[in-house]
């Protein structure tokens, strides 16, 4: 059977673009094959074949976020999208770009940078990640405070449904309400409704000048006061990150109980004026502001990328971030773990990387349970973005989903992928 299937897959992508799946395991589940299609038509034929044969498929961009999701219940074929890496259309005067999904953000930055434009999606390790992967996982970084997330950037999307049907949703212009907002549905859907193959994205002008400051505080309470004052001011920062002592140490910055890392981007005169105001706010709150090197954000991102430790994505109210940082620190300390915490303080989107020895059975009662209990009341959540397989097999990485929303999610998934071709088992509620 395998060889017959291999023949048919080879007929689609060519022998040199079909590999044995042993090295492409997802959470220990190895697919039979990895196919590297050259274009949308080949993706369509691969999925058509998978649908007809009852195969389970996992789409893959750069593979940097393959740790996200529950372990797949089945896996036969990984479709690796790296060869779909072309710019489809770029007219700088439109301030939009259409690119294939397998293009890396690093390559895209080079294209856009020539015209002083930027796609402001900067999740940890963004340079190596693909456009499609970042959107399918709804990954974000510090810039979301100013520019929003994938849902705000994605204007149009071409995707291939579970049965191979090539489908387009949205538009190529910055404003469109023609039909349902399909790009929103695909963003963060982890490829469970279709494989994203092409995107049209809203861009922004690169700022003329950007400077960053670290506002250190002797206590979380002081940081909290400064954050509230900053958010209630007329300042327009691009990034407002809260970081804990572990992150400060890893950055090589002076260690305080907590700090805010803030950047301001505008014209020179405005950056200078806002920087002075930021310094005033920090002093008034009992801390101080110190300018950071320009490369700080790359170094900061790298602390939360890669495959080390257990990485949590915490969603909470903006007013809860300091309390959450304290809770993560306390739980980590109690169980002998090191913790790096950082995230968008203004929007309550935190990432925590926990490192050290903790038995797989202990995580749920020691860490996840208390965090999820704390966040349940305000509608927050804890997603385990990455962890060792032994732990993953014992937990639900997504956590509970509101039952009413889950009922709709199930009906949508059943409508479009009733036989479970796309990423079976990996999404919320093991769909």
């Amino acid at each position, binding site marked *: 059977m395998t060889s017959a299937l291999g023949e048919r897959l080879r007929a689609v992508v060519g022998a040199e673009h079909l590999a044995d799946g042993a090295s492409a395991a997802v959470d220990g589940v190895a697919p039979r094959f990895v196919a590297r299609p050259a274009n949308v038509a080949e993706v369509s034929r691969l999925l058509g074949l998978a649908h007809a044969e009852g195969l389970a498929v996992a789409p893959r961009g750069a593979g940097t976020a393959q740790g996200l999701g529950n372990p797949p219940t089945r896996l036969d074929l990984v479709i690796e999208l790296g060869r779909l890496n072309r710019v489809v259309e770029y007219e700088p005067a439109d301030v939009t770009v259409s690119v294939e999904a397998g293009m890396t953000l690093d390559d895209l930055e080079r294209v856009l940078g020539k015209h002083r434009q930027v796609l402001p999606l900067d999740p940890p390790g963004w340079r190596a990640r693909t456009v499609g992967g970042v959107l399918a996982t709804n990954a974000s970084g510090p810039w979301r405070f100013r520019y929003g997330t994938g849902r*705000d950037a994605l204007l149009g999307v071409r995707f291939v449904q579970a049965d191979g049907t090539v489908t*387009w949703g949205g538009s190529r212009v910055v404003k469109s*309400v023609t039909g349902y907002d399909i790009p929103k549905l695909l963003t963060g859907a982890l490829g469970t409704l279709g494989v994203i193959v092409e995107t049209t994205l809203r861009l922004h002008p690169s700022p003329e000048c950007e400077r960053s400051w670290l506002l250190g505080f002797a206590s979380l309470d002081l940081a909290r006061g400064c954050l509230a004052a900053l958010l209630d001011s007329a300042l*327009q920062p691009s990034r407002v990150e809260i970081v804990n002592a572990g992150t400060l140490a890893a950055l090589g910055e002076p260690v305080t109980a907590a700090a805010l890392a803030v950047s301001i981007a505008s014209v020179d005169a405005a950056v200078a004026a806002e920087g002075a105001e930021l310094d005033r706010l920090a002093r008034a709150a009992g801390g101080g502001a110190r300018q950071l090197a320009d490369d700080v954000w790359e170094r900061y991102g790298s602390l939360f990328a890669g495959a080390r430790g257990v990485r949590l994505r915490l*969603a909470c109210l903006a007013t809860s971030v300091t309390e959450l940082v304290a809770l993560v620190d306390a739980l980590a300390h109690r169980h002998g773990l090191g913790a790096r915490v950082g995230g968008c303080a203004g929007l309550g989107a935190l990432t925590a990387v926990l490192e050290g020895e903790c038995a797989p059975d202990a995580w749920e009662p020691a860490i996840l349970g208390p965090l999820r209990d704390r966040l349940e009341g305000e509608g927050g959540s804890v997603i385990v973005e990455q962890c060792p397989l032994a732990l993953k097999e014992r937990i639900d990485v997504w956590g509970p989903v509101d039952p009413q929303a889950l009922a709709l999610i199930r009906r949508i998934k059943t*409508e479009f992928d009733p036989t479970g071709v796309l990423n079976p088992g990996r999404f919320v509620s093991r769909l």
Partner: protein
Amino acid sequence: MPLSPAVIPELRRLLGPDGLVVTPEGRMTYECDMHTFYKGTPELVALPRTTAQVMELVRLCRRERVAVIPRGSGTGLIGGATAPQGGIMISTTRMNEILEIDLANRSATVQAGLINVWLSNAVRDRGYFFAPDPSSQMVSSIGGNASTNAGGPHCLKYGVTVNHVLGLEVVTGAGELARLGGKVADRAGYDLTGVTVGSEGTLGIVTAVTVRLLHTPEGVRTALAAFASIEDASEAVSAIIAAGIVPAALEMLDAAIIRAINEGIHAGYPTGAAAVLLIELDGPQAEVAAQAERVAAICRDHRPLAIRVATTEAERTLLWKGRKEAAGVLGRMTANWLLQDAVVPRSKLPAIMREVAAIAARHQLLIANVFHAGDGNLHPLICYDERRPGERERAIQANEELLAACIALGGSVTGEHGVGVDKAKNLPKQYAPADLNFMARLRRAWDPDNIMNPGKLLPSHPACGEGLRVGAPVRIPSGAWV
């Protein structure tokens, strides 16, 4: 299915004696929205006060296989809140409470019927505002804004309604109450909030909305630049955008509109100009000052007749008053009109404005323009008089040609008004059958019996006429669309 008279006592028990409009005169008020071309009087109008009542209403409609037509303030421009197939209209006008304002988390939760501008009014003193500002904001409801994903002049910088909706409370077509999203930004699972916004009441009826509030910018500068030709003005717009400046708003008005506004509300726009740009910059003072100089320089490069900068809040208000009330002065200009809402890529603005002029000349019609130039979102207003033989037909033809030109340039059928009944037939111009099939099947997950606002948003398809019958479970094979 026609409504059984037996449900009226049941509805009266549910809604109270003043919660139901049954008389023909009363129902006539609800026969159309602002696009008076489309009419359809509902069999009953329900005026609930609570979400629980809305849920009971939808359940009753589902049981009786009767269409549900959600309606906010009825200011839409697409015939979306009309009942061409009969049914029960649910008006949210009495659900107009602010449920929560949480400035520390920069959010508010309001009932669907709350008037847009009331929310900004409620938080302005504390330095905040709700960004979506459709021209109807003095009367349109936030639930309606969310259901149509309304835009407005300032969405050039701030984004459309969906970019500001954090969560929704919605009663689905299945009669279930769903709370989607919320004050906490990220949720695991599909972005159901994002999909429901802009669904025009075809998935469910929005009963409450949680929105993002923004801090009032430190500085605002509003200027008006007049040009001798639309072409010069269009090229100035493209140049501003290409220069990497994101104005808060960048609006264009042509000579016909300027004349009507000046006569109607004495806004004092320059007479004799072929086009006027209304340009607003906001943000930190130093940024606004630097960008204002660059915008002025770009305008000067495009042969302006005049550049006028508002120096007081009163002057700024007057500049905006003309733009905001443009729709209200249309009656002075024309007996009848068709309004287009298509979008083109911003770099194509000069090309499409040439095309608009050519189409107007070809059909001997006045096409007036007042629109969101910075977004490339056109609002050509095709003027005609139905009493003159053939003029209506020429207007319809011009409308079709205009839309085709926008799509050919890579544009979209509608930028902010929505689809409704007006534009449903045009979706196949922008989407392939597979794309429309996907949307039709998505709808079924919310509304299994096709009771929610039938005949809106999606085009009908001759091969699937069966699927359009209200109350019939929708069977949509994956190769077809309705």
